[in-house]
């Protein structure tokens, strides 16, 4: 028995047959069956998903510390690695925490993907292949081939009016934005921005090529992920009002500093705290995080701020 046959036997075949039975229960509607099974699979994998979301959240939380370490030991890679591991240990998290649950879930998603695709054969060749995946349940044999209509869609062909590609791209963008890790590193910022757009656009493009049934599965998955993410971290990076306010405050603060530096000393009243700050000489490289994005938005749980680059309170 080849690896493909084993894969079919343990993963694709059960899902295929469950999808057919679900279609029977859900008013002979394959679209509803796709949505239902996607929800069921998500519920079954909820503990793993939570583990992954929490690990991602923890990773976000230590980003400022990681940035500091990078600044400090960036050139000494060995030391940097040691310090990083130390930080992970202290924070009680594993760098693999985000990836392992995802890797475990991946075969299940791939099996679901293949099952949906197999159940929507366009060509007779596909239908013959499907016949080899069916269990000897009466309901299965009387249901196949499944009806392809759902709302305005023919589930076997791509959505020609582009609603699904937009939904796939849109929901994926929202999901990405919610999980985006704020970072002070301009390189990483650019990379994150690129990924924020690249993945949704890529999936939207793929949706133009694949049967709508698969796109329906992607949209449903994204919506469920968004809901889970919301309950764990709130809107995360999606609603960045707090971040905007912080940036505005930083800009005002910089203006005030410039004002102090340019104006004669008696024109501007400077508080003791402001006087005590070391801004360096004009033109020097800033030692703080350069007014980068805050480490967390207001939507996440507030924690006391610490660290050297923090602006002292005004009195």
């Amino acid at each position, binding site marked *: 028995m080849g690896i493909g046959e084993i894969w079919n036997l343990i993963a694709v075949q059960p899902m295929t047959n469950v999808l057919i039975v679900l279609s029977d229960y859900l008013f002979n509607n394959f679209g509803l069956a796709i949505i239902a099974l996607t929800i069921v699979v998500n519920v079954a994998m909820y503990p793993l998903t939570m583990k992954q979301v929490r690990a991602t959240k923890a990773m976000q939380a230590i980003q400022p510390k990681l940035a500091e370490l990078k600044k400090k030991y960036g050139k000494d890679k060995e030391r940097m690695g040691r310090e990083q591991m130390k930080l992970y240990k202290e924070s009680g998290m594993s760098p693999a925490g985000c990836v392992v649950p995802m890797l475990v879930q991946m075969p299940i998603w791939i099996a679901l993907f293949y099952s949906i695709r197999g159940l929507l054969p366009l060509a*007779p060749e596909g239908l013959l292949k499907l*016949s080899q995946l069916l269990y000897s349940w009466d309901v299965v044999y009387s249901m196949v*081939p499944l009806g392809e209509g759902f709302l305005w869609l023919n589930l076997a062909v791509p959505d020609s009016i582009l609603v699904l590609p937009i939904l796939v791209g849109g929901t994926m963008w929202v999901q990405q934005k919610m999980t985006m890790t704020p970072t002070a590193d301009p390189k990483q910022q650019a990379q994150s921005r690129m990924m924020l757009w690249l993945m949704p656009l890529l999936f939207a493009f793929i949706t133009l090529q694949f049967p709508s049934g698969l796109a329906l599965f992607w949209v449903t998955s994204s919506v469920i992920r968004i809901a889970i993410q919301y309950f764990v971290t709130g809107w995360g990076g999606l609603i960045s009002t707090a971040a905007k306010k912080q940036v505005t405050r930083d800009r005002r603060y910089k203006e005030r500093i410039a004002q102090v530096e340019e104006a004669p000393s008696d024109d501007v009243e400077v508080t003791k705290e402001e006087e005590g700050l070391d801004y360096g000489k004009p033109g020097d490289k800033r030692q703080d995080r350069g007014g980068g994005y805050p480490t967390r938005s207001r939507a996440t749980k507030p924690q006391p701020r610490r660290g050297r680059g923090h602006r002292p309170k005004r009195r």
Partner: protein
Amino acid sequence: MIKKLFISLLVVLLLGGLTTGCAMQDQPEGWSGGVVVNGTLFLGSMDGKLVAIDVSSHNRLRPDVTLETSKPSGGFLGGCASGSTAVAVYGTPAVSEDLVYVGGYNGKIYALSSSSGALRWVYPREGNLDPIVGGPVVASGKVYFGCSDGKVYALDAETGDKEWEEFETGDKIWSTPAIDGDTLYIGSFDNKLYALDAITGKEKWEKPYETQGAIACTPLVYNNTVYFGSFDRYFYAVDATGGSLRWRSEVEAGSWFWAKPVVYNNTIYAGNLDGKVYVLNAKTGLEKVDPIDFESPISSSPVLVGSLVIVTSEEGKVYTLDTSNNQKNELKNLGAKTSAPLFVSEGVVYVHTQEPDTLYALNVETGVTLWSLLLSSK
């Protein structure tokens, strides 16, 4: 670092999925059967051409005629299913007088001159119907065919003009119609078998005969009975005149009945996708012997040569089944995927394999390959 790695992996998987996913998506490639008329064999190749072969010299009569290339359909950029532009041909071409009729998966019926290959007419003249999977049949100056849009069409064989308003069923039609006298029998994915007046297109039975599964099998009419199998794994015999059930096979097969059955001496031989041939009494439906196992799905329709039933399994093994003792005998292992219906002429059995796209002519008694011809590079 891990995130970067993961994202890169995901992008590679997605791009890979986009390309290989499309490649792995089952493309309609076709498995045309063939027909021999006046020493010329006509069949469709997997690169969308009508091939005409002189059976005496085993050579092509003329360069293959390309059926027009299909335009991408379904989806903004055409979708995976339309990656290939060659017209897939699944049905067996039909020949009448000087015309050959071929149904294409691109939703068109072509009528070409059998001698020159020149296109006489095409239906529809503009645009396309849904995919045509079953073959056309010609009778009384009309061409009949079923379409994936669920409709049965009747056209004037000479001109391609519509003869009667198409008859609509509840789902796709992938089977080839069977004509007996002035009645046309056809199965649909809506689980029903229909009997239509071939002249008017009106239903003949009070109501169509309904099974519990889709019908893709081409019906066989014999002794005023219509024989066909269904996706519900049962085989049926229905009164050809009134549409009432004569019998339903007692045994439930392991999979779908896809191939057209054959009948010999009041015995039905029906191949099933479970790899078995069911041998049933044509009058009672009772099994004459235990199902005969051919170890691989049977999607090619068998043929009868004398008292031998010739069966081909999907993996390309050709067998003879002796109707006197129901013993099978392996005639030839072509080792190539075969789903096209077998056909026979003057004691020679023709097998069209799909991988590679080749036509084999076999001697039924010895299994010797008399000749073979590569139809396309697919």
